[in-house]
């Protein structure tokens, strides 16, 4: 594993989160899910986030993907103040700088694997003739090259998860945010996804944040942290 990046000086951080808080208002009372979260992520790192269910792991990942706004705090990615972006700049950010794997491994229904991977490229303005190559490369990384023209409805749970990972990779983002990407995978596929993650970060430019319940997967990451009672602890 590439641990050298994490020991580099603090201003080389790819992600810098400071005093991040999130409070949900469900109409009856206020639920404080995240309290004063502080952390940095450097290029080349794979950060595991663990914690019991309902502890706010998905909430944190949604904030990092700016699907959700924090109640307070700051969030910089590559020197850019992410929370100040306007709506179109947010879309641009999601399209070019982060790749997201959802917990539910959502794929577009009634669409082929190819079409699922094509949309990020369409939105990023990639030329049509360049798309097949990039889609094939991303699918190869999760060993699904042979499923390229299958319908998403006919994939197994594990295959869906791998397609979701491939879709997060296809635009070569700086940061990949994965919410339990190995939850439905058997051991060997789980580990091979982790191997792919390691390969991706080995370029020294990319970082990955993985939410996981699996201690073995966490052990394969470069850093492990956990959320309890809204607070992030580094291990």
């Amino acid at each position, binding site marked *: 594993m590439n641990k050298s990046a994490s020991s580099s000086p603090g201003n080389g951080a790819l992600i810098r989160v400071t005093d991040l808080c999130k409070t949900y208002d469900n109409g009856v009372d206020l639920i404080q899910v995240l309290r004063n979260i502080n952390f940095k992520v450097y290029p080349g790192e794979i950060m595991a986030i663990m914690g019991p269910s309902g502890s706010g792991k998905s909430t944190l990942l949604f904030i990092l993907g700016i*699907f959700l706004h924090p109640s307070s705090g700051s969030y910089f990615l590559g020197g850019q103040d992410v929370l100040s972006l306007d709506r179109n700049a947010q*879309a641009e950010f*999601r*399209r*070019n700088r982060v790749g997201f794997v*959802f917990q539910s491994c*959502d794929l577009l229904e009634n669409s082929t694997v190819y079409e699922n991977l094509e*949309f990020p490229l369409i*939105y*990023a303005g990639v030329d049509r003739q360049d798309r097949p190559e990039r889609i094939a490369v991303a699918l190869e990384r999760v060993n699904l090259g042979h499923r390229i023209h299958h319908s998403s409805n006919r994939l197994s749970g594990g295959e869906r998860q791998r397609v979701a990972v491939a879709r997060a990779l296809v635009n070569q983002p700086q940061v990949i945010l994965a919410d339990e990407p190995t939850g439905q995978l058997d051991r060997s596929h789980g580990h091979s996804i982790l191997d792919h993650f390691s390969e991706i970060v080995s370029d020294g430019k990319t970082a990955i944040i993985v939410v996981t319940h699996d201690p073995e997967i966490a052990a394969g990451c470069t850093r492990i942290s956990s959320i309890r009672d809204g607070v992030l602890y580094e291990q």
Partner: protein
Amino acid sequence: MQLNDLMRVSVRQVIRHRRRYMGVVLAIALGVAGFLNIVTMSREVKNNFNENLDLIGGVTVLRIYFDNQRSYRPQWFREQTLTALKRLDGVKELSLTAARHGQKSNFKGQHFAFMVLAVDEGFWQVRNFWPLTGKLFGLDAVNAHTRECVIGAELAKRMFGDTQVSGTDLEINLEIYRISGGLGGVTDSGLANSVFLPLTTAADRFPGRLLADRLYLRCATWDDVGAVAAAIPGIVKSFQSPEELHVEVAWEALKRVQLLAWWIEFLIYLATSATFLLGGVGIWNVMMAAVTSRTREIGLKKAMGAEDRDILAQFLSEALCLSVGAALLGAGIGRILMEILGYVIESRPPENLFFFGVTLAFVFAVVIGVGAGLYPSIRASRMEVVSAIRYE
């Protein structure tokens, strides 16, 4: 998002969800087909009514005559007047005639008196008469001044006791004429008791001057009758004296037929616009439902970096796909109906009228697609990613 991607994705989406959209598309398509047929065929159908249904078609025939009993100088229609009338807009055909009352015939010792009507070759067509037996003389007979005649059915029965008289000879004013046929389609007993001679023959044979002072004129449709009737005196006046000129129109019957036709047309237009309106409401509904049921898809696409306008464009172009696709289908169905109808009534509308109708239908379709699809698309585009993703 590039336009060709947008089109491809939208068409694919619509085709994959064709079951959801089929009802709306069919409704609009039928509306378009009906609309095209009204635009293109209504004049043809009226024309056809006109020719085939004497009852309705009769109202398009005008009788124009000089009342020579009251006129100081005898009057008749001049060649130039006829030519000018034929060229008048809305005039389909006309026929020139002259009448001689109290003509006599002797048959087997009995005397018969009747009217002789000297007519041109167009008379049968204009008055919608058909041969009961034998044939009605045509242009050849008129040009050749032949001595033949057509006899009214009642007169034939009175004289010969039978209507099968074609080929027999008839004596009029001591001259012999061959009967070429018996006249059918006559409701007027005066005409059923008359003898018809070619205009030229009568002019040659009858003593004195034959005054061609009656004209029957058929308009193309009943909508033309008013304008044609109004224009006639002016046209006659520019070539000859219009003294004691009378133009007779069956105004009452015309009004009734026009009202009936107006109602039929109105109801069809009403039905058509109702289809269009329902089509619009249908698209609205279907798109609203699609936005709700595709919340996750919208959230996912936004998470993949779609901007608000990408989502807006996608839903709007799907709505347009539906309405324009429906219009296309409707144009196809309409064309088929038009061909069938055209075959049945043996008449074809001008091609540019069809294209005019199709263009209009496409404009409607775009208006409906944008009008009904805009609000649902805006709603889709405004959706927040996280609420879309967590939506169950």
